[in-house]
């Protein structure tokens, strides 16, 4: 299986450094990128669940390619029982049912818009819903 390229490896190292308490599992995607799964991501209000896993793919063209969509636990639900708003839907990640978070980056800057920064933005958005 083709290993992730140097840019993707660097992205994974940065994720591990930024989320030391969230175990990260990496699987090469066979094209120089990687599928990432991280556990124990803190959630909380407005979500009923206190934590979730999160999965996403960093493709071989990183850092030029956007890192999206992201996937979280399939049973994600709001404390107030309201339905999901825009940007959230039902999908699958690696064959497993999951809630899909679709947040595209506008005007991506490959020098600064890292996978870690994107994950932080996605989590910030999720917690703000």
């Amino acid at each position: 299986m083709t290993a992730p390229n140097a840019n993707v490896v660097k992205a994974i190292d940065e994720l591990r450094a930024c989320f030391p308490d969230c175990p990260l599992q990496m699987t090469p995607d066979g094209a120089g990128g990687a599928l990432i799964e991280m556990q124990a991501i803190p959630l909380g209000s407005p979500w009923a669940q206190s934590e979730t896993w999160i999965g996403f793919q960093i493709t071989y063209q990183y850092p030029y390619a956007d890192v999206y969509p992201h996937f979280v636990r399939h049973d994600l639900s709001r404390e107030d029982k309201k339905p999901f708003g825009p940007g959230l839907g039902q999908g699958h990640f690696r064959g497993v049912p999951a809630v899909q978070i679709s947040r595209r980056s506008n005007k991506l800057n490959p020098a600064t818009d890292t996978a870690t920064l994107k994950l932080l933005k996605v989590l910030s958005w999720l917690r703000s819903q």
Partner: protein
Amino acid sequence: MAPISITPWRLVLPAEMKAELFQHLFPGDGDEHGAVILAGVCSSDRGLKLVARELHLAVDGVDYVPGRRGYRMLKGEFIQSRIRRARDLKLAYLAVHNHGGTTSVSFSPDDYASHERGYPTLLDVSRGMPVGALVFAKSAVAGDLWFEGGKRAELKEAIVQGNQREIIWPFPVERAAGSLEKYDRQARLFGDVGQAVLQGQRVGIIGLGGAGSILAELLGRLGVGEFVLVDPDRAELTNLPRLVASRRIDAVISWLPKSLRSRLARYKVLMAARNIRRANPNAKITAFKSNFVFEQVARHFVDCDYLFLAADSMSARLLFNAIVHQYGIPGVQVGAKVPVDAAGNVGEVFCVARPILPGNGCLWCNGLINASRLQDEAISDETRKQYAYVADPQVVAPSVITLNAIACAHAVDDYLFFATGLKNLEAERYWFRWNSRKATVGYDLPRRDFDCTECSVADVSRMGRGDFFGLPTRS
């Protein structure tokens, strides 16, 4: 470290850098001046090529001082900072000075003696990146390049790239004369020398669909000597109208069982090769029935003299843009758009030819490479099916041979005048746009971000980095 070819080498020098350097070396005082050029290294089947990335001018009396043994020398502090930078960015280090004279130049015995004294030590500091020197006269340049293990190689030629392509040699070179009979009318326009230039050119064409097919035909008929072609697709009945000299049997072999008829359709890249050979049986053609983005395919394009992008994927745009700037190869992106909305209404119909010259703004700076679409293209169909995508209305964008022809003719004509040195030095570098419904020609001025990761000289940029910087390719 990747092996470096030890051969007579070429230097690619941007016209703007040459102008700045010559203003410094030849201010009219008849004296000697110094500088350093840091250059990316490219090894290919054509030998070694250095791509000038940075020019560091040595200030007279401060950085360039009376020598202990020779006439002048670069000061140690000036050398030290530049050789360390070469080491860190994996670039070749070239010390530059000038002599008198015009059409021929060579190093003096004192010059060679200083190379022998200093360059082994510089090679230790550079950790194997080549180290050497250039000496310029007003219309000549000589070079001496050192490698690990005591090997050396001379400069073959410097290729100055701006609006024109200019070649500078150490001494006057008798160009191959004589044109083939069938090119005689063109030769009268450009001369035997121009025709010989085209015969010696290697061009890459990425995408051999409607636009690429026309590019191949035009370039083949001009007499370009060598082609590198790539396209993964086979011909289909629906695209035959746009493929030059295509036949029904290219798309459907009617005597085969139905299940095999289109599966054995001819590859578009082989159809283009067929057309080129019909126009120029002597053309050398390397054709890849593959996607351009694979590492082992993309490597064949890094030592072309010109690149034509006629594929419409974002991945191809990203890689083309990267090769242009990383390897100092001018190129052009051609395309046509016939936007049709869900109701079937046709929008603004236009075609473009966008010359991409290293350092002149790029596809990334100008927002023409979409990061989200890059991601979409990189994931497998199997993965995409699992995603909860918002279904966009599937409208097939039509494509028209006339639009392709306008963009391609403009692009190839521009290439022709560039390669033969006939384009005016002050010619416009705008991007050509033709709007069919308005019947208007427009010229877009490309923007240039000064911290662009592709075309600037910021440390993070791939500009002029050669083989020692990763390309955005797929394993």
